[in-house]
């Protein structure tokens, strides 16, 4: 499915003092697609997400949101989601829902991530994985046209991680533009419609997993990663 992107970043640069974190990054997120950003640690994934969210201003370049005018255009799951420990899971979602014009169903939001049975449990009594699922539920409150997830599967067991990606893929199938940063290449390969490889602050390659495999003569996304990120890094080390 090809539709016009509703969140676009063009020519994005970002510097922290002397340190250049992003260099001329172009990215487009389309409704109905799950777009994944993949890259080594410290390569600027979180910085890119924060710029796309409008939480950080780029040193150069621009971000455009062209989606519908709604109460909450972009939902967000931070890398380490955390909530007030004194509140139950249901109260936490109800709090966020109350910040919007359109009433949101707390129960639906919790059921979507498999937390309906833990609705009355306090956040302090939830496991790390369950808190992350609660974070995913929160990020989808209000049905935002764009949803941004910073490592949604981090710290989750394989079953929960798959379940989290299934939730995101479901949202994409329902027309949401989903943007994810992740280190889990197998889940990205399985669920992503488009993958953007980011290395040293720049986009190295991007495309669907199949297109990337064709372009690099690889069979898996891991081999693509080897080809576009690990091998060039090894060559640079040898040259240095």
């Amino acid at each position, binding site marked *: 499915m090809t539709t016009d992107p509703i969140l676009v970043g063009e020519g994005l640069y970002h510097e922290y003092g002397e340190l250049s974190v992003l260099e001329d990054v172009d990215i487009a997120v389309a409704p109905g697609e799950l777009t994944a950003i993949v890259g080594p640690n410290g390569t600027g994934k979180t910085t890119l997400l924060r710029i796309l969210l*409008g*939480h950080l201003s780029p040193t150069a370049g621009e971000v455009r949101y062209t989606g519908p005018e709604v109460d909450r255009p972009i939902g967000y799951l931070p890398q380490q989601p*955390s909530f007030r420990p*004194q509140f139950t899971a249901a109260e936490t979602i109800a*709090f966020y829902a109350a*910040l*919007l014009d359109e009433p949101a169903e707390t129960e639906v939001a919790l059921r979507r991530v498999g937390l309906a049975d833990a609705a009355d449990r306090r956040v302090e009594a939830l496991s790390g994985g369950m808190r992350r699922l609660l974070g995913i539920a929160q990020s989808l409150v209000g049905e935002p046209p764009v949803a941004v997830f910073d490592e949604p599967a981090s710290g989750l067991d394989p079953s929960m991680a798959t379940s989290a990606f299934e939730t995101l893929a479901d949202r994409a199938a329902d027309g949401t533009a989903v943007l994810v940063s992740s280190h889990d290449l197998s889940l990205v390969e399985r669920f992503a419609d488009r993958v953007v490889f980011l290395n040293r602050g720049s986009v190295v390659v991007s495309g669907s997993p199949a297109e990337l495999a064709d372009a690099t003569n690889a069979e898996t996304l891991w081999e693509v990663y080897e080809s576009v990120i690990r091998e060039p890094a090894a060559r640079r080390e040898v040259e240095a």
Partner: protein
Amino acid sequence: MTGARSQFRTLVARELQTVARTRIYALLAVGVAGLLFALTAGGGGAQTGYLPAVVDLLLPLELLVPLVAIAVGYRSVVDDLERGELAVLETYNVPAWVYVAAIYVGRAAVLSAVLLSGLLVSGLVIAVAAGPDTTVFATHSGVDSPILWGRFIVLTLLFGLAMEALVVLLSVVARSVRAAIVLATGGVLLAAAGGDALIVLGLADGWLTESNLLSALAVAPNSAYRGLVFETVIGVASAGEGGSAAPLWSLFGLVGWLVGSLLAATLLLSRRHL
């Protein structure tokens, strides 16, 4: 977009619920009430009347009120920052001013409840322990009364609210809980004690003269509070001995700390993105 009023109510409710479910604040209220009870009953002023008790409590409250403000508010914003909830709230289009106002109102309500309960307990001690004269309501100078005690409570709350606004500002400035406690303690004590120290220094060095002393006293929060208590509570019982402070300017001074701190907090938060 959701009405700012509705978001404000939701955020205030969250603050109040958070405090209601955190036992340490109940312990704080009991501790403050106990301390004020001990100071009132043990200071000797209670047996004599409301005004002597005000004199007994004024200096301890100048220290206690800022400390309670720190305890109630130093984590108010930085906790949300550390948890990543500030970044999440921004995706709900919560304006910085709504967030700051709601956090402040929630925490100010808690601070007021803590101070009010302690001072009401002290008032009760005085009413029970003091002589019959203190039950008379003051209609003219020189008469001790519960009305003066009420005035003292209002001024103490105003002082506390100004300090709480400063603590919320410092919680916005901080980037971690550890930094928040250091900033709140240092900043509030600097404002509380530093103002008085500067005035003393100014008088000693000569750059502060008698003509501008009252204005200077109105600017420092502690001396503004002290001046207001002297002029509008203690001074009532000793007619003709006013002039130790400019009450209106002192009032403006405390309101200035309150409003200025909240404006600065809002500005800082909106520049940093909520």
